[in-house]
């Protein structure tokens, strides 16, 4: 089981040149849980994730790990605790799957020398969890989109961090692969206690897979809690501007957002 960490953002203000996107967010990431950040396009969820994962320097406020600002950690030792899977990672041409996954071992390696026993074990474990061992010696160019996404997640897993941030890990994937990826991430969380924080686009999948949700609207945290607490028809209307009904998901019992729309409304009443 991974160690417990206290990961917090305090009065976080962040953004890009001339444009503030996050306006004062306070939050604590629940350890050993799956947290999902939701919100409409441009609400700043991806910016928030990147700021938490130290890719963006906050304009003011701070992000702390176990009470110490993350900017005070040496880059390599922080990379052994916090990992990030960016939204669109860049694939080097012609690399084998195992070698790519192995690059996740960088923060654990010395400047010279080849892979240690631990490196091999970590890579094999990550590939087993993501079920891509059979592709180990294939060229990454030969893989499909869903398989490639599993390779990227495996690379982040090989990093063996206690906390893993993922920026829309299921975008561009078919629904089958989306569910598969989210199941695999849940495996990881349940078996190893890895704290997972991700941005997801699909509110219904978010509500099903999240233990904890953060709802973001125009750069402010408007709600947080269990999916049942966060995903209500009023709040979905407030955040997404969507008129909807929320019913229990027949499979999981988690909230399921059913949009109303302007047509097709005369059928069944729920």
């Amino acid at each position, binding site marked *: 089981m991974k160690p417990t960490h206290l990961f917090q953002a305090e009065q976080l203000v962040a953004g890009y040149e001339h444009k503030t996107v996050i306006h004062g967010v306070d939050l604590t990431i629940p350890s050993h849980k799956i947290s999902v950040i939701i919100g409409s396009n441009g609400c700043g969820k991806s910016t928030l994730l990147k700021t938490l994962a130290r890719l963006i320097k906050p304009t003011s406020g701070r992000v702390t790990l176990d009470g110490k600002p993350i900017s005070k950690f040496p880059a390599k030792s922080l990379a052994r605790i916090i990992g990030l899977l960016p939204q669109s*990672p860049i694939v080097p041409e012609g690399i084998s799957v195992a070698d790519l996954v192995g690059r996740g071992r960088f923060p654990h390696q010395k400047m010279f020398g080849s892979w240690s026993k631990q490196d091999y074990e970590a890579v094999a474990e990550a590939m087993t969890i993501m079920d891509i061992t059979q592709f180990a010696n294939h060229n990454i160019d030969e893989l499909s989109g869903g398989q490639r996404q599993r390779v990227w997640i495996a690379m982040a897993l090989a990093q063996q961090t206690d906390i893993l941030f993922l920026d829309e890990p299921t975008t561009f994937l078919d629904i089958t692969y989306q569910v598969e990826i989210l199941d695999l991430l849940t495996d990881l969380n349940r078996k190893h206690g890895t704290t997972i924080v991700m941005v997801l686009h699909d509110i219904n999948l978010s509500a099903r897979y999240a233990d904890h949700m953060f709802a973001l609207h125009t750069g402010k945290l408007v709600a947080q809690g269990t999916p049942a607490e966060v995903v209500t028809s009023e709040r979905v209307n407030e955040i997404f501007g969507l008129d909807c009904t929320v019913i229990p998901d027949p499979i999981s019992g988690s909230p399921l957002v059913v949009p109303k729309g302007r047509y097709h409304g005369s059928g069944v009443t729920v």
Partner: protein
Amino acid sequence: MSQMAIDFIQAGRRQRHRRWLLITGILAILAVVLCCAMLVLGNTIYPLEDVIRALSGEKIKGVSFAVSTIRLPRMLAGLFAGFAFGVAGYTFQTILRNPLANPNVIGITSGASAAAVFCIVILHASNAVISVASVIAGLITVIFIYILSRGKVFSIGRLILVGIGIQAMLDAVISYLLLISAQQDIPSALRWLTGSLNGSQMRELPPLIIIVLICSPILIGLSKHLNILELGEQSAFSLGVNTDRTRIILIVCAVCMVAIATATTGPIAFVSFLAGPIAKRLVGAGLSSIVPAGLVGVNLVLAADLIGQFAFEYRFPVGIITGLLGAPYLIFLLIRMNQKGEL
């Protein structure tokens, strides 16, 4: 997790390692053979045995002069410049993730050349001054290209286009300097148009050798970082690489090597452009190709110089031969990138 999975991954990786060692070994042996050929071949062919004896200090009539005054400096200039072009070209192409982004195409070589020609033709400067001026001019060219191509979001395409423009301007400057130069300076300055090992002298070599011996261990030492940078800014950062600092160290070292090599031999066309892709094709992408790229650079320069010297009736400078090899590859690459929509 099963031992089988570990064994399977390990077997594949061992195989790639063996291939790397084999290819690198072959490239190294080929480089040694070419070095020997550079010493043995010439107007008169001397047996290798005599060459070795002459190099170890023995005075042999004819051999000693030809080998230590003409052939050895020529070989060493080709060896170190080739290695510098190969390693630096690979570094640029990998950092910028684009085979077009190499010192040749983006104008660093032209910057260094222009400075060298200016020092020779206008200032009649010493070798030391030429070396220093070339390195500084190379760095200034990089900074200038970077500033001009910065824009709101960094774009490699824009950087390459700006680089090509700068290169055209600097080449015009070189032509102008050659036109106004005194007759007696033209032969030495002409070297900076094509790149040549002709007339390499022992006293010109120390700056090149020193810079290559300092910078290439740094670049090779950072080759793991370079592999990580290849994954993109965000991945590299979250894997604990200080991306800005690493990139600056890599670029400064690579520019120094290219500039000093250019100051010594002139811009030997396309070597820095060809070496990386050839090495990568040979060893695969998983392991670092930086050392193989340097060796490919050496082999290209030495082989092209031997071809230029002996294959034709007239002696061609090395840059003409590498240009003949490189230009078709550039066209091929442009067509392929265009087809893939990468341009």
